[in-house]
């Protein structure tokens, strides 16, 4: 059980017929139950990469396997794959279109052959999962705030009951409350439904707080892929490709330089707080 990319290249030609690699020799395996963050500068291949996970884009070279089966073999059920691997693109609320919130979320499951009654049951469950109350369901999605619209759009994908849920910058443009709601929703889906979550983010702090594994893309290649703590130990290389390490790791470095000895591996607020309190308690 996994999504596996083997030697994947994605090559496109620009105006001058020059070959450009959007992806170059990418080898990855996404296993069920993982919580993964993908980082990289604009144009590093993040969005191209995630569209290979459910066959929306086809590699120029190399292969993509789902549960061991090549997804570009003739008899492979690509449509079924797209039900199992759900992708939520940037600003998904721009794709809301139905008259009511409930109708909008029913669209996916009905498209996959469910009856209206079945779809409604699934849609209501998905909307409750993202924190929308029963009385909202008959409202127009266009009356909602930015954060609420985003959650309805996410419910639209959850209603397909995917095994793998992939999101491209799901918190972009949201205020802190909206951002926390989305990230905690992902955490809950991962913990309670054992859903595999992969999200693209520009916030190293968010990645550090939520994921286990981190993939860093640079010029279409996988620069780092591993445990987040290991990846964030490559501070210099990350800065060289336009990224950074979390605020708390920089803080730990500064503290150590000044003789306030804490672990250099600190990534989150909680870890920083614990480490600092431990030092201060010893002193007293």
């Amino acid at each position, binding site marked *: 059980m996994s999504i596996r990319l083997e030697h994947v290249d994605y090559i496109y030609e620009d105006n001058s017929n020059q070959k450009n690699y959007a992806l170059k020799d990418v080898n990855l395996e996404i296993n069920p139950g993982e919580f993964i963050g993908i980082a990289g500068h604009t144009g590093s291949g993040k969005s191209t990469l995630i569209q290979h996970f459910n066959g929306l884009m086809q590699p120029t070279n190399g292969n993509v396997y789902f549960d061991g089966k090549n997804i570009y073999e003739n008899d492979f059920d690509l449509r079924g794959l797209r039900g199992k691997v759900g992708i939520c693109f940037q600003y998904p609320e721009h794709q809301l279109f139905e008259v009511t919130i409930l109708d909008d979320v029913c669209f996916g499951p009905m498209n996959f052959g469910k009856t209206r009654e079945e779809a409604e049951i699934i849609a209501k469950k998905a909307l409750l999962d993202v924190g929308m109350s029963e009385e909202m369901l008959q409202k127009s999605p266009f009356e909602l705030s930015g954060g609420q619209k985003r959650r309805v759009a996410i419910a639209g994908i959850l209603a397909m009951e995917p095994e793998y849920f992939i999101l491209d910058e799901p918190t972009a443009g949201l205020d802190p409350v909206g951002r926390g709601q989305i990230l905690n929703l992902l955490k809950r889906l991962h913990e309670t439904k054992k859903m595999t979550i992969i999200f693209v983010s520009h916030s*190293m702090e968010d990645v550090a707080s939520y994921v286990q594994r981190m993939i860093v893309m640079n010029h279409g290649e996988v620069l780092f892929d591993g445990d987040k703590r290991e990846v964030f130990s490559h501070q210099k290389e990350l800065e060289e490709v336009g990224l950074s390490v979390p605020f*708390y790791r920089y803080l730990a470095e500064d503290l150590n330089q000044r003789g306030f000895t804490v672990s250099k591996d600190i990534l989150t607020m909680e870890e920083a707080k614990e480490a600092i*309190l431990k030092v*201060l308690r010893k002193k007293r």
Partner: protein
Amino acid sequence: MSILQVKNLVHKYITVGDSEEDKQEVTAIDDIDISVEKGEFIAILGKNGSGKSSLAKHINGLLMPTEGAVYVKGMDTRDKRNLLNIRQNAGIVFQNPDNQIVGTIVEEDVAFGPENMGMPVEDIWDRVTSALEGVGMTAYKEASPNHLSGGQKQRIAIAGIMAMEPECIILDEPTAMLDPKGRRHVLSLVKALNREKKITMLMVTHHMEEVLLADRIIVMDHGRIAMDGTPKEVFSKVDEMKQLGLEVPYAAELAWQLRQEGVPLSETITTREELVEELCQFV
């Protein structure tokens, strides 16, 4: 004289549902007063729907007051004859770089503003040249904007405004769609234009770390001004900010958490350097 004055500003709009009875009046801005001095760098914070963007759009007359008034250099935005002049003096940069580029070549795009002002051609090119230089994009003057990164596009959008030699730039979440590098470039440009050219900046943002660049922060909530002060004044009120659904910079948050545990840190900590400095005094 203040460069911007917002007096008793109220903005209401009506949403219409399926039927006529479904009409609802929404108050986006609810009686606010602000005055901005030339050269200030103001950050506007507030959760989604707090009225930040509505306020920004009033400043160059994209939205009109329902009640009250907005003056730019003394010019009333309600008077149509002032609008062209106001928009030359107060330009807006929006969130999405792809929605605000009109030219097929970078220098044409930047020339759009001064061209519309009816300037002589030679003057237009002078302005385009210096605007592109100002944002560090001279090397791209003949490039097609759609080959640029998000951060580069935002710098072009800022150059387009700079070419009109405005006194004030309003930025509505200018970095929301950018990666960390693009964000750093845009922010350092905004800061430099403020410090060196004394251009008044009003920046709407959700990023608390960006806010530290500003001299003054206005926090909006439900169409009203909830707080107005220096970053230190605003971020020392961590509880209040949390109640408004907002965050404070990482260093201020961590200092607050440590204070809850009894560590005697000052409430004015907003940066990493300040936090490190105080913590090191304990060892």
